[in-house]
Structure formats: structure tokens, C-alpha cells
């Protein structure tokens, strides 16, 4: 189980949070091809290693924030 550092409430149990997937996915700028649009809608990074991702403190302060977590060791930095 993860101990997730909410920037407002401090470290809290994973059960208080909802997961939001990869952080910082830019909305495609200007004209997009079908392939670019598909990549934006469906494809996210899926690294075995460090990953910037969004978490939502659903049962707390209800803040969305970004953490960097290692997807193999679960370390958060």
C-alpha cells in the first residue's frame, strides 16, 4: 500500500486517493492528424521506472497534485 504525500495534508494512506494517470499530457496544438489525436486520447507513457502521475485526495482536501513514483519499487520522490 502506498503512502502518498498530499501537498496540503501530508502523507496519507493510498485508500484516501484516486489515481489520475500520467501527468502533464499536453492537449494537441493546432490541426491534428487522426493518429496524433488517437495518441492524445488513448496512449500514455507506461515506463518501468520513474513516472510523473496525478493523484486526487478524494477523501481529504480534494486537491489534485503530481507525484513522481517508481513503478517497480513504488518509491515516491
Amino acid at each position, binding site marked *: *500500500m502506498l503512502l502518498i504525500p498530499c501537498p496540503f495534508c501530508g502523507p496519507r494512506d*493510498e485508500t484516501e486517493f*484516486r489515481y489520475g494517470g500520467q501527468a502533464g499530457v499536453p492537449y494537441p496544438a493546432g490541426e491534428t492528424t487522426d493518429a496524433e489525436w*488517437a495518441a492524445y*486520447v*488513448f496512449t*500514455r507513457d507506461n515506463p*518501468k521506472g520513474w513516472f510523473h502521475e496525478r493523484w486526487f485526495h478524494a477523501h481529504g482536501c480534494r486537491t489534485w497534485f503530481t507525484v513522481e513514483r517508481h*513503478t517497480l519499487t*513504488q518509491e515516491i520522490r
Partner: protein
Amino acid sequence: MTRPSTHPDFLWRDPGPRPSYDVVIVGGGGHGLATAYYLARNHGLTNVAVLEKGWLAGGNMARNTTIIRSNYLWDESAALYEHALKLWEGLSEELDYDLQFSQRGVLNLAHSLGDVREGRRRVEANRLNGVDAEWLDAAEVKKFCPVIDVSDRPRHPVMGATLQRRGGIAKHDHVAWALARRADAYGIDLIQGCEVTGFEITGGRVTAVRTSRGRIAAGKVALAAAGHTSVLAELAGFRLPLQSHPLQALVSELLEPVLDCVVMSNAVHVYVSQAHKGELVMGAGIDAYNSYGQRGGVHVIEAQMAAALELFPIFSRVRVLRTWAGIVDVSPDASPIIGRTPVENLFVNAGWGTGGFKATPGAGWVYADTIAHGRPHPLAEPFALERFTTGALIDEHGAAAVAH
């Protein structure tokens, strides 16, 4: 029929890699082994290697809950999984190995009026696709599976269920061993302890794989690495719409026979069967976050156990023996991705998410055909990578019966 124990010491050779093969399959799990077997059996291709970074069938093949069924909603899925189920029905004989394939029936429970309508719809859809399916009301569920609580007491009462009588379970290890033995007998090299570390791509076409045991030239390369497929795709220079998550399961201590069917519940979220040996085998939904850690959160197990006890109060004193997680690759529409990739002669079979085991022979069959001919097998065609661009998704989140 009882047979004397004639289990040989070794069911397959343990060769090192040769410098070159016609086809290199990356991943020595159920799908990789089935693909190798059908490449030889159906297409006469035996200059084939299966590369496994660990040991054969030691990944998700050793970690799944062994449920087999084909009661999927959409035509494309029903055709694919039913193809697999028909193969399962003859596979023990064909491989001359007792897979302990037991068609004990799979119940998918309904807990709300919405579930009931969805279940009835699925029964009709299945029948139109030639898949056996029945609707049971709550009393019939109780008759079919006496240990379920169908009273009004639970928070999510059982209002009925779909039943696929041809569904059931098989012994996962036996499946892997039987396929490995046959592939080996065809002369296919099953190479363990051999991790793929890169691909050589010339003019958009794959020509070799680099491995922890040296370079291997390959006419064609076929990925069958489940949760790690994204990692391999990245090495080959393209992205796939996949996210890897832990999927947890657990077994209880050994019990006398108490549950002789498979029970799945999407709403309260547990699926359970009793293994031949006697353990209750239970699965949960995926953990929410991306992970390759093969371990999940305890709270997921807690929720799963709470759901199980709502349905089966009789299990309240049963002890959990062990828990574990496999890493599953989940696609946006909960359907697999089978076919070509942006790299020529590099093929992908991935995205089976929480339900790859049931498809093992069917997936191997269509993937082998796709690799052999360099174009999608008709049953695999709708599952091509292109569907995420065309929008022709096969949205099976419901039929996956596991929360994504």
C-alpha cells in the same frame, strides 16, 4: 482411467540460443508457447525460438485464476474467445496431457436491475453468436450453487446470473508444460533466462533481437510479453495504448469440495472457484496505479474479501494462505491488441489485461497465423492496433468482469 505416474524428469530441452531463427517469439508464457506450438502444427514453421527472461510460464501464466469462458458481448470478442473455448475442449487429447480442463459452469452474478438487463442482453447476444448461455433467476442460482447467499440481506443481493455451462477452469501449469513439450518436440528452442534488451531495425524492418545471451537474427519477431509489452515496444521505438497494472489474486487453505462452479461478480467484485486440489482461488480488480512491482495494495484484498463474504457467508472462517499479483497490460477498450506494428515483421499480441489465460489456445492460433502470413488472421483483424485511430473499438469493459 488411472494412469501410472509417468511424469518424465524433463518435458523440454534447455537449449542456448542459435545465431538465427525464422521467427523469434518474445515471452515464454502461455501465449508465447501456444503461438510456437501452432506455428509448427498449423504452418510447419519450426525454425523458431521462444525467449523467456525468467523461466517458462513463470509470469502471469503462474499467477492467474485459470477461469475459462467465452461469454463476451460483442461479435468480435465472442468469435475469438469461442474459438479458444472450442480448442480447449479438445486440447488435453490433442496434447496428450491432462490439462484438468473442467467445464463446471461460470456464473456471472447480477446485483441490480441494470445488471439483470445487461445479463439478459448478454445471454441473447451470446446465443446469437453460437455461445451457450442461460439466464438464471435467484432461486435457480441457489440451486446451481447452494453456498451462495441469495437472500435480501446482503448490501448487493443476488438478483440472478448468467450461466455458461461450457465455461470452467483448467490447470494452468499443465497447460504450459503440455504446450512446451509439444513445441519442443517440433524442434522449437525454448530459451529461458534470456532477456530481450533491444531490437535491430533496418529500413523500418526488424532484423534481429539483442538479448542478455547475445544477438539473435530473426526473420520475424513476435511479442507475447503481457505486462512488459510497453517496455519492449519502447525498445523498438513505438508506443502502444497500454497501461500495466498489478492484478491480485489469492488462495485459501485447502478445503473439502464446497464450490463446484465458477462464480464471478462484477458489481461486488470478486471471482472465485475451487481448485482441483481444494484451495479457493479468488481474484480481485486491478490496483488503480501503473506498476511492474508484482505486488498490490492490501486494501484491494480487503474489498475483495468483503465481497466474497457477502456472497458466501460460509467462507467466513476460511484462512488465506497466500496472495500475489501479476502485471497485466490493460488497453483502453479492455480488448487485446493482435497484429502488425509500425515496424515491419514485428508483431504484437498484448493488451489481454485481466483475461488472457482463457484465450491461450485461441490467441496462439490466430497469432501464429498472423505471423506466418504477415497479415491478420480474420478473427484477429478487428483487434488490430489501427482501431484506436479509426475508432472501431471493441469495448468489453463489462465482459472482462474485472474492474479496470
